[in-house]
């Protein structure tokens, strides 16, 4: 099986004018759009567009555990299922879940669990379904970010939201929010996530090479980007209600 156009990586990841290939500065995020409560059959849901990434997240829970032997008597269980559509990537992906999807599912589960109160729901399960319709770099970060919104939309008590972004190094320069090309052709990629209730890291991976002192730079850059994305998550959660409030309160909404 062949494709007519090859997936080629450009030589340089910076343009003549110093900007990245999509026109961004080093610390600039791609455009992000978030929407909450878009699927009415799930208990909670959210949709995200982040650059070219398009991702749906939906939550069911608390509900019975299937298969039953996985239920824990002393706490609830959280399961995340991250899947990509066959047409979400350049070369058609097989429909069945692959190893990468299973790994990412596990990482996102571990990342979201700290903000939940699973001990309050013994014998039940919370399930998060993440479906990537289009992928373009940083999908695990985007998925975590949208999944946190879906959990909040489901009315599940949370210690705080979770926000995620990837920082990395391309052509020797440290940048924020790697696109698909930058991810594949760059030298280093560090996806991370923060749980805001204790401002600690709940997701951390790294691929590439980095000096010992570069980690500090990476994480500082990440923190700034995470704050920016967090504001967007908060707006998305509130905006549905605030629009309605403003319509009927004559704009006298206190923020």
């Amino acid at each position: 099986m062949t494709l007519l156009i090859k997936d080629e990586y450009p030589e340089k990841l910076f343009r003549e004018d110093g900007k990245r290939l999509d026109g961004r500065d080093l610390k600039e995020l791609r455009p992000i759009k978030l929407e909450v409560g878009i699927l009415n059959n799930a208990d909670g849901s959210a949709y995200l567009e982040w650059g070219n990434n398009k991702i749906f997240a939906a939550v069911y829970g608390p509900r019975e555990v299937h298969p039953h032997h996985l239920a824990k008597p002393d706490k609830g269980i959280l399961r995340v299922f991250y899947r990509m559509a066959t047409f979400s990537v350049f070369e058609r992906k097989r429909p069945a879940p692959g190893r990468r999807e299973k790994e990412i599912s596990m990482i996102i589960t571990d990342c979201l669990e700290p903000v939940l109160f699973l001990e309050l729901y013994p014998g039940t399960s919370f399930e998060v379904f993440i479906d990537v319709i289009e992928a373009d770099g940083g999908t695990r970060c985007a998925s975590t970010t949208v999944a946190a919104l879906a959990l909040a939309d489901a009315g599940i008590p949370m210690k705080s939201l979770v926000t995620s972004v990837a920082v990395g190094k391309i052509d020797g320069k440290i940048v924020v929010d790697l696109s698909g090309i930058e991810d594949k052709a760059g030298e280093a990629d560090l996806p991370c996530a923060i749980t805001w209730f204790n401002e600690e890291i709940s997701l951390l991976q790294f691929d590439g090479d980095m000096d010992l002192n570069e980690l500090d730079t990476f994480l500082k850059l990440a923190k700034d980007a995470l704050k920016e994305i967090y504001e967007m998550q908060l707006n998305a959660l509130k905006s549905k209600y605030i629009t309605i409030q403003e319509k009927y309160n004559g704009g006298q909404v206190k923020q």
Partner: protein
Amino acid sequence: MMSIRRVISKIERNYIINNLKNEERIDGRGLWDYREWKIKHNLVASAEGSADVCLGDTRVITGLKYEVGEPFPDIPDEGVCTVMAELLPLASPLFERGPPDEQSIELARVVDRGIRHADCIQTKKLCIKENEAVYILFVDIYVINYSGNLIDAGGISALTTLISSHIPEGKWVDDHVEWTGGYITGETIVKELPIVLTFGKIGDIIFIDPSLPEELICDGKISISVTKDKVTSIQKSGAATFSIDDIQMLNKKAMELGNLLRDNLNLWQYKVNIE
């Protein structure tokens, strides 16, 4: 209505039936009215064609990917198109994760058959070099929200995806394929537009486009694919029986309503031009 459960309450069943007896449906539609259609095309850049279709609250996103490979020995000068469907758990608590089950297989196969026999896809135009290289098209349907009648939504979604397609054009050079730099689009690949229409039956009453509660209590369904003047496929499902008069009536209705829908949706507006 009450949120989805596998068991439907008797009063909900009676409610729907009593109103149907007055030719009224609980969402205010007539027996032969579709819910509202909303269609977006070419939304996924990584796909060579895509569509996001809403029929009422049912939402389906479909994408097209291609590969170049050897043809089947019995059709050496024709390309191939296969349809797959997945009922995503996020679409409904009734959908479990895992490999495609009966419902998703039925969706894929009914949509596939509706397209296959209708001279819709010009498979000879999908041939690059006879016996050596043809296009293999994958039309993959993902159900994003389930609110009844996945088949009709899936059908329009697949059709719109094919119309919006833009596949790199290949030529045969010596012993391999190469990209010409151009694209073949839906205009070349698609000719006829078969429309699949699904009818539900509750008691003695038959109606089009079952909504979710109607679908969950219906005794049977029948899906009929039509072009302008031909019936190209039929699928009956569920335990209900249909009289021969009913079936003849439905074939006529399908042709009439199919033509109406085809005109209303004007799917050719979704073709894509690429230099």
